[in-house]
């Protein structure tokens, strides 16, 4: 999407203060409740968000798409792989020297500790440009704007249809034997009669539940605490306390 500067100016109040870059990475601390000015209780999730370092800037010319790669938290060097260390290190290695000697431009490095959590945010023309090594903090968000939060929800392991999809199960009696929590027959529910002999894709069945990427859209930012890098959003977000999340500008308009 290409966006003219007039569009940005006319929509400043809509969500982003001044063509904000993208988003932030953070960690879910937990849920609690706070009072707003009117004395009404607001349920909030506390997110420890940022500071995030820009590790890489993806460009249309080189990578085929526009994005910024952010890193959050620090991974001890002994636990980081060589690739992870090299990704952030601005070191004069033998290889980089020989590349420089051959006149190959060096790739910009963030020059920081290896990041614990690395994710990319797609950018478009309306977003402010980022530079490698730049630090992004909760300053990006203003109180009252709406954000999307992306995380990985809690894994439930293998779960049956009653627990996972709220199926009713089978009767306790009337001839039902050892089959009370089963889904029952699936043949006639899953197919368009006369079209195929196969069950339709997406038919709800038992199996692995949870531990998948979930986006919760349009959460209101209740409070921004610059000092402690804390963000309060109204409502729940996916994942356990301590889980890593992405906080991005919402793609829901109006």
């Amino acid at each position: 999407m290409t966006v003219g500067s007039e569009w940005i100016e006319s929509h400043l109040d809509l969500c982003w203060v001044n063509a904000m870059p993208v988003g932030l990475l953070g960690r879910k601390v937990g849920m609690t409740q706070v009072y707003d000015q009117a004395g009404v209780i607001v349920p909030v999730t506390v997110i420890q968000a940022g500071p995030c370092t820009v590790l890489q800037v993806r460009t249309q010319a080189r990578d085929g798409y526009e994005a910024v790669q952010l890193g959050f938290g620090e991974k001890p060097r002994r636990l980081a792989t060589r690739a992870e260390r090299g990704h952030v290190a601005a070191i004069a290695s033998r290889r980089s020297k020989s590349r420089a000697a051959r006149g190959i431009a060096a790739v910009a490095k963030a020059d920081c500790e290896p990041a614990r959590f690395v994710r990319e945010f797609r950018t478009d023309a309306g977003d402010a440009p980022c530079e490698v090594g730049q630090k992004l903090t909760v300053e990006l968000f203003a109180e009252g704007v709406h954000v999307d939060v992306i995380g990985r929800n809690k894994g439930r392991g293998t779960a049956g249809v009653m627990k996972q999809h709220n199926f009713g199960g089978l009767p306790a009696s009337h001839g039902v034997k050892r089959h009370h929590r089963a889904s029952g027959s699936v043949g006639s529910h899953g197919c368009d009669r006369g079209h195929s002999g196969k069950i339709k894709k997406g038919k709800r069945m038992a199996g692995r539940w949870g531990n998948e990427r979930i986006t919760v859209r349009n959460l209101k930012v209740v409070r921004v605490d610059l000092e402690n890098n804390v963000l309060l959003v109204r409502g729940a977000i996916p994942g356990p306390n301590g889980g890593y999340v992405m906080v991005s500008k919402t793609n829901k308009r109006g």
Partner: protein
Amino acid sequence: MTAPKKDLLKLVEASSLRAEPLQFAIGDTVNIHTRILEGDKERIQIFNGVVIARRGSGTRENFTVRRIVAGEGVERTFPMNSPKIAKLEVVRHGKVRRAKLFYLRDRLGKATRLTERRAAPKKVAKAKSEE
């Protein structure tokens, strides 16, 4: 990066806690002054009764007050830290031996009375002297 600090939650909650905690004990008869918004006007409503329970912690802490209205028991639960509670006055200290006075629900008339405790414990005595 260490694990997220649990005290961040406390820090967030601290802003929503009452600067001066309400001082009362279970079994006290109290007057609770609540702010009520009627249209644009704000007025104070007083709820009088016996504190029969207190539960929760942090911003979630609340207490339950019971009174008899027209022969019918009425219980109201107040969030401890709600800014809508303007004031809480302790009218009378009741002598009680437990933290939850749910047994009062089964009693009628004279049986619901609690013996007055003359010698108030330190905590409450201090609150009284402040008034």
